């Protein structure tokens, strides 16, 4: 008999509800995601400009004084706290708030897509290895070791740049150089071992449990067993890992973009904005501080949520995602 999956989840939810920090984290992340989704609304109705429009020679009224958006020596204005240039302008005269929200879309998209990619591949590999053991297990473990030992940022940057000029060409598969698919792919692959190992451990343990033995005795096929018995019990591991995977994927995307190998300019991303901001850190510190704070807030909220989920689901789980 398969254990009921009803009870544990409701219990988890109740425990999570009591964890205020986790709830706060989840809320903040949801707000950030919503704000980024609503970027076009802000752009059109509040700021009146798009993320790539330059306003180098315009003037804005700040505290009743008409001021250059970008002065003659190239210094942009700081936050005006009003509709236009709410968080100031960058050196091309672009609205920082608008770029922040659009950049968030890119950063979140890459982070989420990469995390989902990791889960897809990691789940598959972990289940295969844990359930089948033997040869398959050895091969998968060895493959994971290989990925694990690659210097993450270096390979990410190398791949990103190597593919920068001409894009990817592997048989029938062609991806353009500017496509977001490249950083998504790189990040997804890099985190696979971190998920596959716990999944494998879980599958390994589950394999020996009575309900699985019983199912096999009943003559159920492997695929069916995996889907109906093993998978639901591996699900908690996935749920625990998801927020942390997204958080780390977002951070890695920022690092890659910062080094010029992730999202390519002029498309905004929090990482590229920090890189651009560093050039003007003395005369316009808001350009570095703002996207960085946004990044920290997003990642922190996800980490809070992730910790809460882990505490609620499986406090003893050793969840670790490295750099």
């Amino acid at each position, binding site marked *: 008999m398969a254990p009921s999956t009803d009870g544990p989840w409701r219990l988890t939810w109740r425990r999570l509800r009591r964890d205020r920090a986790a709830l706060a984290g989840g809320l903040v992340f949801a707000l950030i995601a919503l704000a980024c989704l609503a970027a076009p609304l802000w752009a059109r109705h509040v700021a009146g400009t798009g993320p790539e*429009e330059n306003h*180098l*020679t315009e003037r804005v009224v700040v505290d009743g004084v008409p001021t250059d958006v970008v002065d*003659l020596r*190239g210094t942009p204005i700081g936050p005006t706290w009003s509709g236009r240039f709410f968080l100031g302008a960058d*050196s*091309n005269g672009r609205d920082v708030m608008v770029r922040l929200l659009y950049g968030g879309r890119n950063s979140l998209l890459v982070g989420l897509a990469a995390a989902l990619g990791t889960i897809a591949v990691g789940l598959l590999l972990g289940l295969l290895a844990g359930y089948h053991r033997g040869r398959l297990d050895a091969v998968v473990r060895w493959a994971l070791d290989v990925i694990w030992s690659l210097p993450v940022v270096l390979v990410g940057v190398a791949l990103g740049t190597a593919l920068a000029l001409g894009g990817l060409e592997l048989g029938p598969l062609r991806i353009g150089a500017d496509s977001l698919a490249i950083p998504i792919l790189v990040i997804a692959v890099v985190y696979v071992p971190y998920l596959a190992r716990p999944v494998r451990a879980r599958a390994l343990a589950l394999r020996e449990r009575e309900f699985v033995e019983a199912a096999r005795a009943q003559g159920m096929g492997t695929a069916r067993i995996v889907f109906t018995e093993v998978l639901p019990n591996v699900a908690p591991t996935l749920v625990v890992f998801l927020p942390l995977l997204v958080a780390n994927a977002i951070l890695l995307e920022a690092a890659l973009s910062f080094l010029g190998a992730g999202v390519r300019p002029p498309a905004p991303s929090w990482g590229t904005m920090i890189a651009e901001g560093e050039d003007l*850190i003395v005369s316009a510190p808001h350009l570095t501080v703002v996207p960085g704070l946004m990044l920290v807030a997003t990642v922190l909220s996800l980490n809070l949520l992730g910790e809460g989920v882990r505490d609620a689901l499986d406090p003893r789980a050793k969840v670790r995602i490295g750099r």
Partner: protein
Amino acid sequence: MRKLYGVAAVCLAAVVAAFVLVACGDEGGGTATEGDSSVTIAQASQPDFLDPALSYTVHGWEPMWLVYTPLLTYKREEGEAGTELIPGLAEELPEVSADGKTYRLKLREGLRYSDGTPVKASDFEHTIKRVLSMESGGAAYFEAIEGATEYMEGGKANADISGIETDDASGEITIRLTAPDASFSNVLAMNFAGLVPGDTPFENQTKSPPPGVGPYMFTKSVPNREFVLRRNPRFDEDTIPGVPTAKIETVVTKIVPSVNRQTEQVIANELDFMQEPVAPDLVSEVIERFGPGGSEGQRYKEFPTLSTYFFFLNTQEPPFDDPKVREAVNVGVDRRALARLYAGSLAPGCSFLPPAVPGFDEALNGPECPFGDPNEAPDLERAKRLLREAGAVGAKVTVWGNDTDPTPRVTQAYADQLNKIGFDAEPRILDAGVYFQAIGNRKTKAQTGFLNWFADFPHPLTFFFLFEGSSIQPTNNMNMSMVDDPRVNKGVAALRRETDLESVADRWQDLNRYVVEQDYLVPYGHRKLSTFVSDRIDFENCTVVHPLYNNDYSQWCLKEDE
């Protein structure tokens, strides 16, 4: 428990071993010797080459013109005086035949390179051979020599160039051109023709630059880290009249990628000079503290250069093969906006030729500019209308740029402006190391992109070479606009024969205007560069800026010196 201590001991041993490795592996930083005067300066990136035959950038020329002297050189003075030719390794200015095709010079006697090797007349031919056989960016300038094209096509490095005859015994050098070229004396004064010994290999010598005749010599070259210039002991006041010896013994150039850091270090007097323009982030502060009338005494000044910054428009690819489309671009581009991206060190303008080059037309940089005054807002409506009339609204354009600040931002601003006019433009930023190679390759079919041009010598020919049909090459092309206009070709060819620049300045002016009116390019201004030194260097008396080669290290002196 013992095992844990064991582990701890191993870890400790590993850490100690690591530190020993660190200590032993570190290279010593000091290059200056005790008691000598020495300055440390910085560049943001390794010069393209430290080989006189190959280097074609400001980064490379600024140090190298003090190491390698050609047969002719320039007066080492500021302003217009610095554009005057004087004899270098030759005794006198060349004797030019009546038909303008033969140049005769005689090498000074008793010259020696910095390593003691005597200078021979045949070294000149060898120097030119290196330029041609290594397919240097400057090879085009020397193709005017008879036999040069045959030499290049022959492919044998040691073959003879028929148009150059040298006699080591008498020191005489005779050069025959295929056609008269009024700028050839200037070509003879280019860095490419800086003499090197006759046994210098036909290979890039960046790792160990050859000796030369000049106030300085290279004593160390570690690419991407630093290179060192030392005063050449074999060069004294009388070696070449008009070329002073160096006052400072050692100049260490470090490669410091961050311009912000360079600026901070010069402010703090930890660095004596930065070759790059001051970081935009700090320029206001530097001007306030160290500019003219600055609160802490002047150590900073800006100076105009013989340069034009523009975007090329490929006249052989859509949509810019349509003259109306090109006109729309020139009318709609906002030149004031682009100037701001240079932190104020760009003077907006419409002229192709920069100020101080004969043929420059001051009116073009003001209200008489055919697209409207570059200091005023552009007529966007007119631009949009032109594009509509040409039927090219929504045309897809890739805008190319490199990643040397501020070029990426300028490229993005330009793309945005194109979009405002009605194009569908997208910027594409490439690394600076591969940029020219990529856009100079015809296969790339670059439509428009960033370009700047600094005068190689104070003659309009060095600019118009960019628009001559004969300059178009399949790779390493510099005529990115792919201009092959008979009027330009014939005009330039005719003016090439005129050695008296003053008398034909107005014809150059016409050509200048023509090229601009044909919208073969999108000019937007002329660059100002800067001198920013630490307070060790005597700013007032010893910072000399040459119109072509910018800061003259050999004339720097320290304040301690009398």
